[in-house]
């Protein structure tokens, strides 16, 4: 399974970015390959509008099975994500990516 996190950094110890559209990074963990990669989304800060759809499109290209984030996507982003098969889990705002992954594994996120 591939799991994506909205994060403020590039490592397991990075905090979850509670925002979806304006998340600074995506961390993507591939469980089968035990590989962690990141995507830098910071250029979205230059966009006054449309951050949600743009970031959702980028997430689609990263092809995760699950997204772990904080507050959850806004309306426009949610409209895009509905068309994908990505499962969205929220409520990880105060955690590091590592803690969020463990919480997910223990079934504590929904």
């Amino acid at each position: 399974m591939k799991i994506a996190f909205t994060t403020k950094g590039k490592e397991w110890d990075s905090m979850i970015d509670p925002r979806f559209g304006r998340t600074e990074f995506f961390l993507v963990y591939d469980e089968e390959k035990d590989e962690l990669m990141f995507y830098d989304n910071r250029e979205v800060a230059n966009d006054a509008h449309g951050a949600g759809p743009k970031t959702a499109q980028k997430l689609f290209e990263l092809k995760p099975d699950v997204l772990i984030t904080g507050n959850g996507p806004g309306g426009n982003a949610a409209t895009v994500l509905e068309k994908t098969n990505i499962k969205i889990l929220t409520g990880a705002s105060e955690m590091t990516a590592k803690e969020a992954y463990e919480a997910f594994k223990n079934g504590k996120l929904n």
Partner: protein
Amino acid sequence: MKIAIASGKGGTGKTTLSTNLASYLSEKETVVLTDVDVEEPNSGLFIKGELVYEEDKFKMVPQWVEDKCTFCGICQKVCNFHAVIQLGKMIMVFPQLCHGCYACSELCPESALPMIPKKMGILRYYKNHQLHFTESRLDIGEEQAVPLIRQTKDYINNTFSEDAIRIYDSPPGTSCPVIEATKDTDFIILVTEPTPFGLHDLQLAVETMKELKKQFGVVINRDGIGNSNVTDYCKAENIPLLAKIPNDRRIAELYSQGKLIYKDIPEFRQELDKIIAYIKTLKINRQA
């Protein structure tokens, strides 16, 4: 003569000044007042008139034709506003993000994104003796004010004589809607309050007007509160300080009842007279 009444900070009295100035001037001449703060037009709360005309306003947005699409991705690349998103074998259009620039539509090699009209708001024109009042109201959920402001100004330009004085009650701030509302006007009145917050946002508005190379002046509303920093700033920057409307409970009471102020409060009317006197000198300069 086209005058925009704008501000950096919101809630400083743009509508109070616009409606009173327009109504007062219309006692002697024809005035065209237009509320171009289309996201929250409120001049209509103070101006009563007979509804003469109303019209739905549309903007053009792309509509995806699936059969023609080859999923080349050009539309998504050329859209600066992320209003067109490609998800594999699907194109999604977000009309509320679309600026109507036609780039995706024109550059699509398969003509798979024709532009279609989408209702964004409504324009209404009211008449009360010599006062012609027009307002446009953006539909709920629409995010783009600029296309409606532009169409409203086109309507004014096509409907009314150039001879009548035109007053535009503008949106607050310094972003695109304000630029659209003020860019073709002859003079801008920036309304502020004499507080640190008022001064801060006034300075942003002044910088914007200088960038646009516009003539402008300042009106202080609720004079008597705060401090003298706005007055000092205008002096130091050689910005004409056109009037100071006193902070007066009676003004607030009339406002809260949806009434015009100048009819009942001579001190307020005197300040309008100062503004009008200044505007009239501009008129002479312009003709000369």
